[in-house]
């Protein structure tokens, strides 16, 4: 929440006739399209953006400090509150990290359940992204269609673990909830349902000339910039880097399902849109395979009731819908983590905003914020 020190020296002098100056425009934290409480200070020349500065922290809750004061098990529900749109992925990353720390592996059934839920969540997250992104660009209707389809995912979550948004679906050592009766049927029904719906989003947007004009060539971020800025997830893949942690360093049961990593070439907003749409299709494919292969067996590994991991430190990361979500956990041998560091994809990706919007127009800033797919709960933690 730093002030505008960088722009402070740019005090606007007394206006004279036909004298033009740069304008500082404050966007947010109360603004319809900053996806929460992001504040962007724009330096403008007319409508053209000369520079930006992000001011974040309005939603800072000190998750990492909370972690140091909770036991490993107790901290689990808190991670759902970071990226609340993809709570399952957060929980998956945390549980896998602690499992790595205590050297326990979840049973195969749990692994597959995790894949199913994480992919459902990826679809839900992308649907929220698509709806809000389209809303930013001015199409208000896709939002309602995507939220309708997301509703089915939330219904499955509710039936599976009793909560819709902040699910707390996984526990350290596996999944504490057994799949309910008809779980597989529901997932397959959702797969059958959502396929045509993705086509529908596409026919509303993909071919639309306004959509193409608004997204093609906007907010270009090439592969080198992506790597330098640490940008991961669909943004990186849209720049042509075929890298997905699900393939590069498989976790859960991702090595037992087949899927492609969709990529694009230009790294502009349209490509990121196409990559995410393709990812949704891949997720549907993963879901079908995972349901088919879902093995029988226990869902929880043997984990002591009082968790005291040996002293040590590990880093583990997963492919969250927004990018690489990592947990760096330091244990001192007690029941509480000594330090938990969350490597949030939204936080790192948001850094690229300045690079992407320099020289663009105000309308593009909104489009780029949308295409980065940030969740302020995760940016600020």
């Amino acid at each position: 929440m730093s002030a505008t020190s960088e722009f402070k020296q740019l005090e606007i002098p007394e206006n004279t006739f036909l004298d033009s100056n740069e304008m500082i425009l404050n966007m947010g934290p109360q603004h319809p399209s900053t996806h929460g409480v992001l504040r962007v200070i724009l330096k403008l020349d007319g409508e053209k953006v000369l520079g930006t500065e992000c001011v974040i922290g309005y939603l800072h809750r000190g998750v990492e400090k909370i972690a140091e004061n909770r036991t490993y098990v107790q901290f689990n529900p808190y991670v759902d509150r970071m990226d609340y749109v993809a709570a399952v992925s957060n929980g998956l990353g945390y549980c896998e990290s602690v499992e790595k720390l205590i050297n326990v592996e979840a049973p195969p059934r749990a692994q597959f359940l995790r894949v199913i839920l994480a992919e459902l969540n990826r679809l839900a997250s992308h649907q929220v992204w698509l709806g809000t992104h389209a809303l930013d660009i001015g199409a208000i209707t896709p939002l309602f269609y995507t939220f309708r389809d997301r509703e089915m995912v939330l219904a499955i979550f509710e039936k599976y673990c009793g909560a819709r948004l902040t699910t707390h679906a996984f526990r350290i050592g596996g999944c504490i909830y057994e799949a309910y009766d008809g779980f597989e049927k529901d997932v397959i029904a959702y797969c059958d349902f959502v396929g045509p719906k993705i086509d529908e989003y596409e026919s509303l947007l993909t071919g639309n000339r306004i959509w193409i004009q608004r997204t093609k060539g906007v907010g270009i971020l090439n592969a080198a910039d992506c790597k330098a800025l640490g940008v991961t997830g669909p943004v990186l893949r849209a720049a042509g880097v075929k890298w997905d942690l699900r393939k590069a360093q498989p976790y859960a049961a991702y090595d037992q399902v087949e899927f492609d990593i969709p990529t694009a070439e230009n790294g502009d907003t349209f490509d990121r849109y196409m990559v995410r749409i393709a990812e949704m299709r891949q997720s549907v494919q993963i879901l079908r395979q995972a349901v088919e292969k879902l093995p029988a067996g226990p869902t929880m590994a043997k984990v002591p009731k009082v968790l005291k991991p040996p002293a040590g430190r590990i880093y583990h990361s997963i492919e969250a819908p927004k990018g690489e979500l990592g947990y760096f956990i330091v244990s001192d041998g007690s029941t509480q983590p000594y330090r938990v560091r969350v490597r949030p994809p939204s936080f790192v990706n948001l850094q690229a905003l300045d690079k992407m919007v320099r020289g663009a127009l105000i309308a593009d800033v909104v489009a780029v914020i949308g295409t980065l797919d940030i969740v302020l709960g995760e940016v600020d933690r």
Partner: protein
Amino acid sequence: MPDEKSELDKTPAKALSAAPAATTVSPTPPSPPTSPKPAPAAAKPAAPAAAPKPAPVAWESELVASLKRQYGTGIREASIYLTDEYLVVDKSIVFDVLTRMRDDEHFDYCVDVTAVHWPKREEQFDVVYILYSFAKNERVRIETTIKDGEKVRSAFSLWPTADWLEREVFDMFGIEFTEHPGLKRILLPEGWTGYPLRKDYGIRQQDQAWVKANIGIESGQ
């Protein structure tokens, strides 16, 4: 609905009663009955299944050997712990090592920069860099230790992503980075006193003066 017994009622109890009440870590990960998961690319040589507690084992590789040749005792430790490869290097050479990692070893992606506070040690802080190489699909952690008040050279010139990550470390731990383009608080408001992730900072503690001056309330708690 006291008489309605849903599955939820049974499952947790079953799972919990199956778990041993002991406080020690169960040493052997249960081997899955069907199709054991093939080891991922970075294999799991560490943490032998029989060992009661996983311990770091020495990390032998060409990279480590060449680094050791170049920096000698500057490389204090090179180990693998639970598949995580990490180096502990001296503060004086950490920037050089990072530069080398980026330029010669293709670690072109800086995953994270963070810190850990150990108030009882003389060198209070661990500064941790997590690097990843797309070409090698390999992740390396580079750690260094510094005293309170000591400065570290910023990795911004190597990876621009370090900008915000280092600002967050500064914000939360008060570790200063030299040659950083704009080192200031990022999550907390400017003018806040105290560094929340230090161990001597209480979980309910906050800058009362700031809160009073800027928000006009006595306390947020």
